[in-house]
């Protein structure tokens, strides 16, 4: 990877036996967070691999990666999970998708791949044979955690749920009313996106990136395009960087409106939900008018954006946002005055700050526990460096705090968009990449989506095709928080607590 501070990233390769100690040193830097861990096939040596740990170091505005080669003769590496709990699911994923053993990891179970695949199925290995995997003997049943004791019973829910939501399986162990343990089993909508991307051109892979999680289409597309641009050494024109802020914040707006509505729905506050959903729909319709797509697909491309805002549409967007904000503030006041709502959300579904930090939580869920992190500030991209804003924090870590963070961020989004519009220079909104083909190599791209950190780690080969695309969604980081948030709560509050995170299943499962 380009070891260049100007890209906001650095990377080192160390011998495998020094990987853990190097990571430990990084993890002790101030506000360090393990963002993701990823494995890859060694392009030169069949059967050999490499693993990489990527840390966010906000104090230095740096993503720092540490990698180590893994020889074909001993496909294993020392697990960091006992030291850094945030590594848990990343390492489980490396084990199942590459067949590399994280030695010392406390949980040997697969994470995303279900029993229908034979044992030894490792889809991201170069020699993976899908036909053999389909015809083999299914693996033994997944061993759920067992909570035993007098009066303890289990409630399994899903994968298909009552509402219009994505599929996932939840297994509650309860004693009387309170939840003792929640085990979350996902992977149902695993689509093999990382493997599918391999061998494609960046332009082809972009349409996959935009479909990792529909409601974060723009953020995933943006993160991917920024990785391509880092490899190409290309910087989009200033106008494009500001327009990216506009679209990214429009995406945050409609999602936060929908999330706040969801919380109202789950406490039976139908009036409040309806009002927020009207506002959400107004944003979706505006997206369509501005950019031709309600979910903002097909707009971000390597080198810029395809949708420009002509003079009059910038003006009308400004007045649209002013009226949206006025309406939002009016509805928000009603929320805050509705005891039936506030009684349910205050003190419910608490995530302690220490847990959020240890698990590497991101986005509004982390900020609601007082964890100060927001990629727009910590690792500025697009035009965020020139648009200062207040990172929104709360302390309580409950449903109310998550709702409050989103409500405050809505206001910041409106302000960011209008300031981006103020600064919009004349000029193109897209530039070609230098001589067409980005250079071979690896680069990161990231974006703060409405749920938090989206990270794409892209490796292109000498033909300019994708050799490896690792996608880390904010939901992957945050799902484990939910298990903590529901402990001691009652099952009927689960939908509410779940909605206050509103995580993406597809983003997690990919």
């Amino acid at each position, binding site marked *: 990877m380009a070891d260049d501070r100007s890209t906001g990233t650095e990377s080192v390769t160390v011998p495998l036996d020094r990987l853990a100690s190097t990571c430990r040193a990084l993890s002790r830097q101030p506000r360090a967070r393990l963002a993701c861990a990823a494995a890859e096939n060694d392009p030169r040596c069949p059967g050999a691999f490499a693993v990489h740990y990527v840390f966010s170091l906000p104090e230095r505005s740096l993503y720092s990666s540490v990698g180590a080669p893994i020889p074909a003769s001993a496909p294993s590496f020392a697990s960091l999970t006992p030291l850094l709990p945030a590594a848990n699911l990343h390492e489980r994923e490396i084990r199942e998708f590459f067949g590399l053993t994280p030695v010392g990891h406390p949980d040997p179970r697969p994470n995303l791949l279900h029993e229908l695949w034979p044992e030894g199925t490792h889809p991201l290995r170069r020699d993976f044979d899908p036909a053999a995997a389909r015809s083999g003997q299914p693996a033994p049943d997944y061993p759920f955690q067992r909570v035993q004791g007098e009066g303890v019973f289990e409630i399994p829910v899903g994968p*298909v749920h009552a509402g219009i939501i994505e599929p996932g399986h939840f297994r509650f162990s309860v004693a009387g009313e309170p939840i003792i343990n929640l085990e979350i089993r996902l992977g149902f909508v695993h689509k093999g996106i990382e493997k599918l991307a391999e061998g494609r051109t960046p332009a082809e892979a972009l349409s996959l990136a935009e479909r990792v999680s529909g409601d974060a289409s723009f953020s995933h597309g943006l993160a991917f395009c920024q990785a391509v641009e880092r490899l190409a050494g290309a910087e989009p024109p200033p106008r494009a960087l500001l327009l990216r802020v506009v679209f990214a914040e429009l995406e945050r707006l409609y999602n936060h409106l929908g999330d706040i509505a969801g919380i109202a729905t789950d406490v039976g506050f139908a009036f409040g939900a309806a009002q927020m959903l009207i506002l959400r729909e107004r944003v979706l319709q505006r997206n369509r008018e501005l950019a031709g797509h309600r979910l903002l697909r097909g707009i971000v491309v390597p080198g810029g954006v395809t949708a420009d805002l002509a003079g009059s549409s910038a003006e009308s967007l400004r007045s649209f946002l002013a009226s949206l904000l006025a309406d939002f503030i009016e509805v928000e006041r009603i929320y805050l005055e509705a005891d039936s709502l506030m009684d349910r959300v205050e003190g419910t579904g608490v995530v302690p700050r220490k847990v959020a930090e240890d698990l590497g939580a991101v986005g509004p869920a982390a900020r609601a526990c007082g964890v100060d992190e927001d990629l727009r500030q910590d690792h500025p991209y697009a035009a965020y460096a020139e648009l200062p804003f207040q990172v929104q924090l709360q302390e309580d870590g409950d449903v109310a705090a998550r709702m409050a963070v989103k409500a405050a961020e809505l206001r910041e989004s409106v302000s960011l968009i209008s300031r981006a519009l103020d600064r919009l220079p004349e000029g193109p909104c897209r530039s070609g990449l230098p001589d067409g083909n980005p250079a071979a190599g690896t680069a990161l791209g990231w974006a703060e989506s409405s749920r938090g950190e989206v990270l794409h780690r892209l490796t292109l080969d000498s033909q300019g095709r994708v050799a490896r695309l690792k996608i880390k969604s904010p939901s992957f980081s945050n799902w484990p928080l939910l298990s903590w948030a529901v402990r001691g709560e009652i099952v009927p509050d689960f939908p509410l607590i779940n909605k206050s995170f509103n995580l993406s299943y597809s983003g997690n499962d990919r």
Partner: protein
Amino acid sequence: MFDIIRRNLKTGQVTVPVTAGGDPEFELVGAELKAKLSRLLNGRSLHVREVDAGSCNGCELEITGLSTPVYDIERFGIHFVASPRHADVLLVTGPVARQMELALRKTYEAAPEPRIVIASGDCALDCGVFAGSYAVYGPVESVIPVDIRIKGCPPPPMSILRALLAAVDRL
């Protein structure tokens, strides 16, 4: 709250101005749907069960949008139900992920006849961008019989409404 209610009463339906920004046809198709339903189902609403068989959630975003006051398809007699056992129609999205294939089959089997199936979105029709993945079983029709197909990524609310109208014609 009462201020807003008062204003809403004054401005008439909240749905009108925003829907007009989308498609005035929505009201026409909706009215036709409602008329047909009251003839066919004796005033009962049409029960729709949504099944995400592997979607990216973009399709769900638009389907949930149908129940918001802006579209409010409940007023035409469309009701989203919690269980396939109550469903007249299954509205299926996504390429069928291998890890959802069984759940989709079971959901279909749980629905009572005639169980009209709408495959909604490019992925449901031909796996869309996910075609060829080891983790994707196939389009919806490779798992259960499909009656109606909706194109789009994701299909906009109007297309879904039209498909529901077509579903009623098959009852």
